[in-house]
């Protein structure tokens, strides 16, 4: 049977985290003292040679971070903020050729399959190692078409006006405690601009790797698709397994101008020592489409709710999300759709699998403002529980102020059916393999959404977790 399903990811063997090694020889040209204070922020900004407005932005955010209480809802956040290293600058510049990347870092990324993926099927690749981007490249044809794909720091240097106009407009520092933290100490991330009418038919990819112990990674991404443009951006994440906690707190802002389409795909595969507290939000203007494809396999605790603000008439938002929680993991994920303009539509499909003592939570909001005439939204949540002790929760919030809108929400929780297992096993399929088939079938509606060229990279990422699979 396994012969007929060669590429089917086998979720059942996600027991051994295969990206959990770390690079012991890594050298840092600068490692800030652990803990967060004004000095660290000033030092960072100075080393990056930033304009004054950015320093002010960072300081304002730091103040808000310090004043804002921890979220009262969601997962248990036990981060010792004083022991985290907020800025770790690897001992290399930002390179455009893999040959220039220091050998040990290159090995890290080779081992994760990044350069190979670029050669095969990507329009551009960025790789971030702790706080800084160590590699960034965009294929020539796209550069000539006017596409900008830079790390955020270079983006700020080279396109200050565009960055200043949009930075922090979708997610202001005051949005939540962790967006404030990111705004204070952000480093790295991607800056993408796709000019009017340009459709990048193969994806751009960024790869994020935390290497150091007790590291904090705070990348900041801003993607702007101008009128009628299209871009597919992919992000992958891994980290070594440390005994102490690491913190990943990104902010991703997306602006989809009229008629554009942006697809953002993430597969986070952080190790179990990482707290992944991320804010991702898009603004969708008239007739534009924003799609989030969100896979959460790793981390100790993830709190992430990709959002779309549908502000232009006829805009569309879509979130497809898979969460997999096993022992020691809490995936608190979901989506938010805010309908402001008439004729806007949204769809959320969330599937979660809980195994062992894992806990997966769907938390989502659909809000229809008065005046969003004819807005439509549908939410579909499915949870699969593999073991007696697994846990799943569903917390949907639906708020409607518009009588011509239509909103529906459905959720189901089930275990693997004994009948299905019996059927497969009496066909001679072993128990573990039968279970794998059923789980794969469960997530298939989302995995089949992945474009072929993306599948190369995604499968690689998932297979890191799946190696040694049954059959």
């Amino acid at each position, binding site marked *: 049977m396994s012969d007929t399903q060669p590429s089917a990811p086998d979720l059942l063997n996600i027991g051994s985290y295969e990206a959990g090694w770390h690079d012991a020889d890594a050298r840092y040209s600068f490692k800030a003292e652990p803990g967060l204070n004004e000095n660290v922020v000033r030092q960072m900004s100075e080393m990056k040679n930033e304009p004054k407005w950015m320093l002010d932005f960072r300081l304002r955010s730091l103040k808000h971070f310090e004043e804002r209480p921890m979220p009262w809802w969601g997962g248990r956040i036990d981060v010792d903020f004083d022991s985290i290293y907020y800025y770790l600058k690897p001992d290399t510049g930002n390179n455009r050729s893999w040959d220039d990347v220091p050998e040990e870092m290159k090995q890290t990324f080779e081992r994760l399959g990044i350069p190979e993926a670029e050669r095969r099927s990507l329009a551009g690749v960025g790789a971030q190692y702790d706080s800084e981007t160590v590699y960034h490249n965009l294929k020539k044809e796209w550069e000539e078409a006017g596409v900008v794909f830079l790390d955020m720091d270079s983006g700020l240097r080279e396109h200050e006006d565009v960055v200043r106009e949009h930075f922090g407009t979708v997610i202001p520092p005051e949005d939540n405690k962790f967006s404030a933290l990111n705004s204070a100490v952000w480093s790295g991330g991607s800056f993408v601009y796709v000019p009017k009418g340009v459709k990048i038919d193969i994806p751009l990819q960024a790869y994020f790797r935390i290497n150091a112990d007790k590291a904090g990674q705070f990348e900041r991404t801003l993607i702007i698709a101008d009128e009628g443009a299209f871009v597919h951006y992919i992000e992958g994440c891994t980290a070594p397994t440390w005994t102490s906690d690491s913190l990943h707190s990104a902010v991703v802002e997306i602006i989809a101008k009229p008629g554009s389409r942006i697809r953002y795909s993430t597969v986070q595969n952080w190790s179990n020592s990482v707290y992944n507290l991320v804010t991702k939000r898009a603004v969708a203007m008239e007739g534009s489409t924003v799609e989030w494809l969100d896979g959460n396999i790793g981390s100790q605790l993830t709190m992430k709710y990709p959002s779309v603000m549908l502000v232009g008439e006829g805009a569309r938002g879509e979130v497809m999300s898979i969460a997999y929680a096993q022992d020691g993991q809490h995936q608190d994920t979901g989506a938010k759709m805010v309908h402001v303009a008439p004729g806007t539509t949204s769809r959320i499909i969330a599937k979660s699998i809980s195994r062992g003592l894992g806990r997966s939570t769907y938390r989502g909001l659909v809000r229809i403002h*008065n005046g969003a005439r004819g807005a439509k939204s549908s939410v579909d949540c499915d949870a699969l*529980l593999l073991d*007696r002790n697994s846990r799943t929760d*569903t917390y949907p*919030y639906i708020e409607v102020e518009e009588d011509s809108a239509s909103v529906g929400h459905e959720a189901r929780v089930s275990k693997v059916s004994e009948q299905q297992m019996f059927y497969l096993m009496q066909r001679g399929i072993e128990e573990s393999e039968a279970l794998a088939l059923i789980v794969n079938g469960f997530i298939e509606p989302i995995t089949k959404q992945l474009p072929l060229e993306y599948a190369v990279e995604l499968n690689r990422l998932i297979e890191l977790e799946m190696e040694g699979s049954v059959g």
Partner: protein
Amino acid sequence: MDASTSSRTAGAESHAGPANLTELNDLYRGLAAVLPLPDLRTEAWHYGRPDRFLPGELQPATSAQLSARAQSVLELLQSEQKLTVLEFQADNLEFHLNRQAADGELMLVQRFTAADAFAGSPALQPWLGDLSQREPERLEAEALARLQQILLIHVPAVHRPDSALHLLVDMPADGQARFEQIVVNVESGSELELHLHIAGDDVAGQSLLHLGLDITLADNAGFRLVRYQHTGNGCDIRGMERQRLGRDARCSSVSLFSGGRHLRHDVATHLLGSGCESILRGLYRMSGRQTASIFSHQDHQVANAHSDLLFKGTLLDRSAASYLGQISVAPDAQGTDAYQSNRSLLLSPQARSSSSPQLEIEANDVRCSHGASVANVSAEELFYLETRGIDPETGRHLLISGFLAEVADLVPEGALREYVYGEMLGGRG
């Protein structure tokens, strides 16, 4: 009730609680003074306004003339001869028709005021035992501190009264607040059908009612509740309903809400014995500037229990409704079958609705699902009716009646259902 049931389902084997109502009031007065109002961020009050249900300057209710609405319900019930009717006011309990059926061997209906000792009624013990284990929130503490009377309805083991018991609760007068508690205790193998009518007329100021309804069903007991709330302007009602179900017990409730000003309704069903079943149905019709905030909790603590909830609402004018529901399934509650659904019809551009059906599941062999929808009358369905020659106005009326009927039809047939339909549809679409 056998000893093991009483200790498991009610936790009342040794009780050292208050000896009478005055002691009970004192016990909670202290708590009410120190507890903060529920934070709007706590889940249960996410969309509610707890301060609306504080007694504030309102005076304790005194006995008054029956309101016109209550009077018409009373007449309606009297005209249907077979019913047992009680009138439940601030300081008297009147039995209309067939008092024997209510007060004889089959059923015990007893009223407790400040002067009555609780010790005289062992049937009240399970409730007191439960009360001593509760951690009340501020509003409940306020209510228990001011509780004016407790009505106990007790059905001894293996008794099945022939007819339903109707209980009529009139709203307090303008500027008054009343705090009441009804305790229903159905013993092993017995059954009871209770119809609860809460009626009141328009008042210029505020009329506030806190009504607690605690239901304990022993093993294999059956209980059916029809609650009908129909009050006038200025009437604010906070209802708290708690069900505790023993092994193989069956409970079904239908709650209909119309009129009034601010409504807060909490219903919790605790499934404590395996094989028990709780069916909950609710319907709210809001108009003007009325608000409704509904909180439900289906608490599955044991294996193989079943619960099924459906709350529907229609929202007119500038009314607002919020629903927050929870299904929780304990790790041992394998074989649970639970369903929860909230459907709202938004019938005006200014009406608002929010809905949050939640699941917390810690067992894997379960079947749990929920759904929620908010929309207007479907244009496609209207069009279909139009093609059949039905004008849009009538079509709309038909569709809304159909929407309401799924719940309203659960009220037993007769003059009362007609009355309910008249009030719920209110002659408008």
